Each structure stands twice: as C-alpha cells, then as structure tokens.
C-alpha cells in the first residue's frame, strides 16, 4: 500500500499544473502577507520557515518518524483506515434511516473522540519529547517561533483526519430523510471548527502543564494526559452515581438566566485557558527544554535488588547453556517495560481499557461458569490475550533504540536463551500471576475443583495467545524507533479482536462449559497447541532479532549513501 501511495504522490508531484499551483501557494505562504500575520503573533517568519524546511528534510530522510503529522505515508494510511470505518458507519446509518440530528451528533462525537486521542498524543510527542529543541536550544530562535513550527504539523493531522472522518458521511447525509441541500456544507464546516477548537485546546492544555508542572514530572504527566479521553469515558458513566453519593444535585437549573451565566462562565474559563496555555507555550519553552529532557535524571537511585526467583525462572527457561542470556532477556525486558518512556507512553492510555473488563470480571466472579449462567469471568484468558497483543506489538519499540548496537557485539547463539528469557517474563507476569491471583478468589467462591479447572483452561488459552502474538515482536525489544502509524492501525485491529473475543466467549458459554470433561479435554488440547506454537514462535522471534540486527549493522551504509546522494 505504501509503495502505491508513494508512486501516486510522485505522479501527482510530476503534474505541471499541480506543480504550478503548489508553487503559487508556497510563494503566498512565504510572502509578505503571511509574514506580517506571523510577526503579529511574535513569530519570526524567516526562522519559522527555516525550521519547517528542516523538519521536512529530516522527515524525508526518515529521521523523525515519531510524529504522525510529519510522516505523510503514515498519515495517509491512518486516514485511509478511518475513512473506511466511517464510510461503513455512514452506510449503516443511512440504511436504517437515522434522524439527521442523531447522524450529525454521532459523527461530530466520533470526530471529537478520534481527534482527542490523536492530537493529545501528537501534542505530547511534540512538546514533551523535545529532542530537536535540545539541539536548537542555544540557537537564536524565539519560543513562539519554535513552538509554532512544531505545532504546524497539528494542522496537517487535522486536515487529514477531519476530511477522512467526515467527507463521505457529510455527503451521505443528503440521503437521510429530511436532510437539506446544505447539510454537507454545514456538517463539514462544523467538523472543521470542532477540530480547530480541539487542536487549540490540546496546545493550551500542554502549555498549562509546562507552565505549572515541574519539568522533571512533565513526561509522566504527559503520559497520563494521553490516557484522559478513555479515562473520561469510564468516569462519565460513574459521574452521576458519584454526585448522587455525595448528595450533589445532578439536574441542571431550570432558570434560563442561571443557565446563561453558567455557560458564560464556562466559556470565559475555556477562552482564558486557551489564551494562557498558548502564551505559556510560546514564552520560554526553549529555556525549559533541557529540564524536560533531563527529567528522568531525577529518578531516585535505588540499591540493586537481588532477584533469585527471576534467576530461577530464567534458568528454567534458558536451560543449562542459555541460563545467563535468558536472565539477560528476562531482566532487561522487565526493567525496560516499567521505565522506557515510549513504551509507557503507549501502554498507559490502554490502562483504562484494561481496567474495565477486569472490574466487570471481578464484579461477576461469584457465579461459576459451570453453573449454566453467563459470567464475565469467561473473558479472563481473552483479556490477557488482548493485553499481550498490545504488549507484543509495541515491545520492539523504545526511546533508546540506538542502544541496540550492544546486541551486535554478542555471539548469535546468545539469542536462543535471550528469547526464552523474554518469553518467560511475559508468560510469568502477564499470564501466570494474574491467573494465580484469580485462582485465590475463584476457589473461595466456587470451590477448589471448579476454580482449578477454569484457571488451567485460562492458562492454556492465554498461552496460545502468547505463542501466536510473540510473532509480533519484530526485532530486539526496545530496539526500534516508535512507529506512530502502527499505533493508529492497532485501534481497528483491536476492534476486530474484540469481535473475535466475543465469539470465543459465546462458544465457551453455550457449548463448552456445560461439561467438565469437555473443558478438561479442550484445556489439554490447548496446552499441547500452546507448547507446539511456542516452540516455532520462539524460533521466529530469534530469527527476527537476527534480521533486525542485520539491518542495524547496515545503518551506517544507508547514512553513507544519503550523504553521498
């Protein structure tokens, strides 16, 4: 798909008419009118365009792939995925003849949600991961100029996303009963306005964070902020209940004057937040950059802990000859999973999504699945599988990916034990420990026999998931730069995964858990399948590490060509 996009873009670029239009727009943007406007906001136009060109050049050389807004290929792919999703959604709504206002609200809500998830992450990546800013901090560049250049690509994301999510639904809205001819224009215009407000809000939000949060805490706060859209979904459901419990009146006052006053107050606070947020960004951002970058240096030094259990597990996984490499894999991945900034950045937003099924499971864990009634505990192995899917798909990416050279200097045979150590860690921490915790509760509620059988089933099924998903780890863990487009593509994949999980749970409930011997037989079968699949997946993982290291060793070649070119 990438190749076709690039080919198409090249063909379009070659078009003389498009070239002429592009050149005219470019000249106008860099001309005196826009320059005057930029100066009015404290932005030096000359340096602003220099920075824009620099970032474009670095992106072209595939040096800056962490930012979706600067990576045209990834942005195209993400937009295409959302375009397909919203086309499907619009088609369904037109077929069921939804009321126009419901249709409009659904797409605006969807636009808001998607933009929040993407733009919060983009803004955070731009402002709280200021690698380039550190390089440029000693240059005579104003904070406003630099921030404006960094945030320009947010508008690009906005253009792509709003168009992808709303273009076809806006046109399809004409087919709804009672829709006016002007509906597409109204729909598209309001989506754009909403998008701009959200983009400004995101910038202001991080501006306020930079203004008030100590620099060393900024990275962590930024990560939590990225999880806020999903957190809001969870909290929103419980918000009314919490207010009731606190005996706070939940109904809106009926008096229009009070309502108007509340609306004005909210509007004022929102405008002030945006204004002060943006001012904080443009003020002394470059001065604070060093402190933001060096944030983790303030992490407290902890005395080294001996980990005999980890050593024993690794020895078991690696065997006699591979015990030390297995321990290396086990300890390395365990530590990096908790500390690597990029990994945490991608995992923290998923915590709310993981908490919801867990709460549901424990809420309904009193009913045994063998009793004929549906219980959410059926979800346990699949929820662990879903979590492992996420972990495995991002495990190869990290902040300090250039440190992967260290693996080039070790004998290739090391990786046999190393991958087994990584596997042992994932299996122990993501499958064994949660199931053992569940076993304690379930044995209390259901009796030991049923609990043991269910947990054995859960262990076997989750192990099959891990065996399959281990193939997603493409290279040395934490040895590659983060690919933002991958994260965006994960979302529809996870939706499809949710559907598969629903089918599996239905099969468990309706067919399997009526007979204990049948569950036992399926457990044994799944365990055998997991064992076989794990063996082949470990071999594949080892090969992918070697392949990745082969690419790393060729990196200097690529640079050489580029400089020569």
């Amino acid at each position, binding site marked *: 798909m990438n190749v076709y996009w690039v080919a198409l873009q090249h063909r379009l670029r070659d078009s003389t008419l498009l070239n002429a239009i592009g050149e005219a727009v470019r000249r106008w943007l860099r001309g005196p009118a826009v320059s005057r406007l930029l100066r009015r906001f404290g932005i030096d136009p000359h340096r602003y365009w220099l920075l824009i060109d620099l970032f474009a050049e670095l992106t072209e050389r595939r040096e800056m792939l962490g930012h979706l807004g600067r990576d045209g290929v990834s942005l195209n792919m993400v937009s295409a995925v959302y375009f397909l999703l919203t086309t499907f959604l619009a088609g369904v709504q037109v077929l069921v003849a939804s009321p126009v206002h419901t249709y409009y609200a659904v797409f605006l809500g969807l636009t808001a949600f998607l933009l929040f998830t993407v733009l919060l992450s983009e803004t955070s990546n731009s402002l709280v991961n200021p690698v380039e800013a550190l390089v440029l901090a000693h240059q005579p560049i104003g904070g406003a100029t630099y921030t404006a250049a960094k945030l320009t690509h947010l508008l690009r994301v906005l253009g792509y996303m709003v168009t992808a999510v709303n273009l076809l639904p806006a046109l399809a809205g004409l087919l709804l009963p009672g829709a006016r001819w002007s509906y597409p224009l109204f729909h598209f215009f309001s989506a754009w306005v909403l998008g701009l407000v959200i983009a400004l809000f995101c910038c202001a939000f991080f501006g306020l964070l930079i203004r008030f949060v100590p620099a060393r805490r900024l990275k962590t706060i930024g990560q939590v902020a990225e999880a806020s859209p999903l957190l809001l979904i969870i909290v929103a459901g419980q918000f009314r209940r919490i207010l009731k419990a606190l005996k706070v009146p939940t109904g809106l006052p009926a008096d229009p004057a009070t309502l108007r006053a509340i609306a004005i107050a909210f509007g004022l606070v929102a405008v002030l937040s945006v204004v002060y947020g943006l001012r904080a960004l443009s003020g002394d951002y470059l001065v604070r950059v060093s402190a933001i970058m060096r944030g983790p240096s303030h992490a407290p030094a902890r005395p080294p802990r001996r980990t005999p259990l980890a050593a024993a597990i690794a020895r078991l996984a690696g065997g006699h000859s591979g015990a030390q490499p297995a321990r290396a894999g086990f300890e390395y991945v365990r530590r990096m999973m908790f*500390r690597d900034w990029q990994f945490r950045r991608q995992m923290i937003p998923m915590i709310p999504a993981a908490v919801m099924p867990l709460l549901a499971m424990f809420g309904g864990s009193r009913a045994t699945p063998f009793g004929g009634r549906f219980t959410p505990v059926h979800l346990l192995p699949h929820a662990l599988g879903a979590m492992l899917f996420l972990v495995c798909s991002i495990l190869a990416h990290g*902040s300090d990916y250039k440190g992967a050279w260290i693996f080039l200097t070790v004998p290739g045979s090391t990786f046999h034990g190393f991958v087994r150590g990584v596997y042992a860690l994932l299996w122990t921490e993501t499958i064994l420990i949660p199931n053992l915790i569940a076993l304690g509760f379930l044995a209390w509620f259901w009796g030991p026999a049923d609990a043991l059988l269910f947990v054995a089933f859960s262990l076997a099924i989750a192990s099959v998931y891990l065996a399959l998903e281990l193939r997603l780890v493409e290279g040395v863990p934490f040895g590659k730069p983060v690919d933002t487009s991958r994260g965006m593509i994960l979302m529809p994949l996870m939706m499809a995964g949710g559907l598969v999980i629903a089918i599996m749970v239905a099969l468990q409930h309706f067919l399997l858990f009526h007979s204990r011997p049948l569950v036992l037989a399926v457990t044994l079968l799944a365990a055998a399948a997991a064992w076989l699949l794990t063996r082949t997946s470990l071999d594949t993982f080892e090969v992918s590490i070697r392949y990745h290291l082969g690419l790393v060793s060729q990196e200097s070649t690529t640079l050489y060509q580029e400089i020569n070119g």
Partner: protein
Amino acid sequence: MPEAVVEFQQVVFCYDRTEVLHNISFALHKGEIVGLLGPNGAGKSTTIKLITGILVPTSGTIAVAGLPLPEEAIDVKQIIGYVPETAVLFDSLTGQEFLELCGRLHNVPEDTLQTRIRDILATFGLTSDRVARLDAYSKGMRQKILIAAALLHNPDIILLDEPLSGLDVNAAILIKDLLAALAAAGKTILYSSHVLDVVERVCNRVLIIHQGALIADGSAEELKASTHEATLEDVFRNLTGSAGLDTGVSRIVEALRS
C-alpha cells in the same frame, strides 16, 4: 614474532558502490597495543567494525584467532571487547543493570559477573553511582561504563574507538595503565584515536589509514626514522599530505570579517 591474532588480507569494503577500504592487509599479534590513525572518514571505524563482525568485507579475508569472518562471527564475538566511538546506551537502565545485561549476554557466570562488575566499578570510581540511571551520567562516566562493558567477559582482543573521549585526566591515566596491563597479560588491543601523543606513548605499533588505504605500519620510532620527522604528529601530517598545506584558518578569519 608472537602469533597473529587478527589478520587482514587484501580486504576491500564497499558501502554500496563506494569503495571505502582498498586492499588492506595487516596483522595484529598477541600482547600488542596497536594504534589506528587516520583523518576523519579514512576508514578507521569501518576497519574496527569489520573485525567485530558487525560489517562483512566485500572481498579479501579476515581471520580472528584463526577463525574466518564472517563464517565464524559467533565465536569471534565471544573473544572481542568493543568500545564504540559514540556512547549510545539504554538510558533507562542503571550502570549496574547495563553491565549485568552485557555480561549475561556474553554468558558470564553470575558469581564471576558480579565480582567483576564490583571490582571494575570500584576501580573506575563508580561504586556509588552504579544505582543511578545512565541518563544521569556524565559523558566521562558513560565512557567508563562502555569500557567496563567491553572488558566484562574477559576478551582476548579489545577494540577501542576513541576510548579517552570525555574522560578526565586521572581517568585517562587509569585507562592508559589498564591498557598496558592488559597487553602484558596477553590481550591484543587495537586503539583508534585522533590524539597522536597518547597513541605515541601507549602503542607499540601504529597503523595509518588514509582515504581507505593503509599507508604506514610500524612502531612510532620506525615511522619517525623513515620519514625523518621529529614527532608522530609530523609523520601523520607528512603521510596524509596535510603538511605544508594551507590549513584554511586565514580563510575562516577572512570569512568572519566579511
């Protein structure tokens, strides 16, 4: 002459179609400290990467401890310690954790590994900093960690690319003494650097690479005698063709005035 530990024979290396090493042949012997000199871009780092097995030669043969590369790269990596020029580390790990990772990847038994880490860190004065994350380390401290990581598995061949970069005077003296002691213990050391007086004092032999070709191979005294120069710096300038040339300093000053 002691046995050859590293042998390059007619080695050619190309990045794509650009030949960057031309028919290089030399040998490193057991217990030698050999200096590798050359202007920027001459091919020093490429030569070192070829010995580590990270890069594969386009033609010619390389043997390390009698093992041909790249065929026996797995065994070769077990006996090589490598300190790269740029210290990119996993900053989320502490110094202790990084060294544990490197030692375990080289399959060093746990008890031996812990003893070596403790002793090396104590010698480098990093005992109290071992529990701090690497992103809090200074450039010199990171360099010490890199050198420690290269020594942990007790390699027979040690390849150092600008090892004194960022080190303070005391640490630099310590490393120079350490290199002499390691060579006396039978280790072979290849030392790439631009600091010529250090190379002159530390190394038994000097290789000079210029534009991808090996243009000199001998002790510092031999090179000085053959070129009739007083210092290694003059030898270097003479052989690399930079002696007597306009260094361009006056042009820079003029350009700044304009």
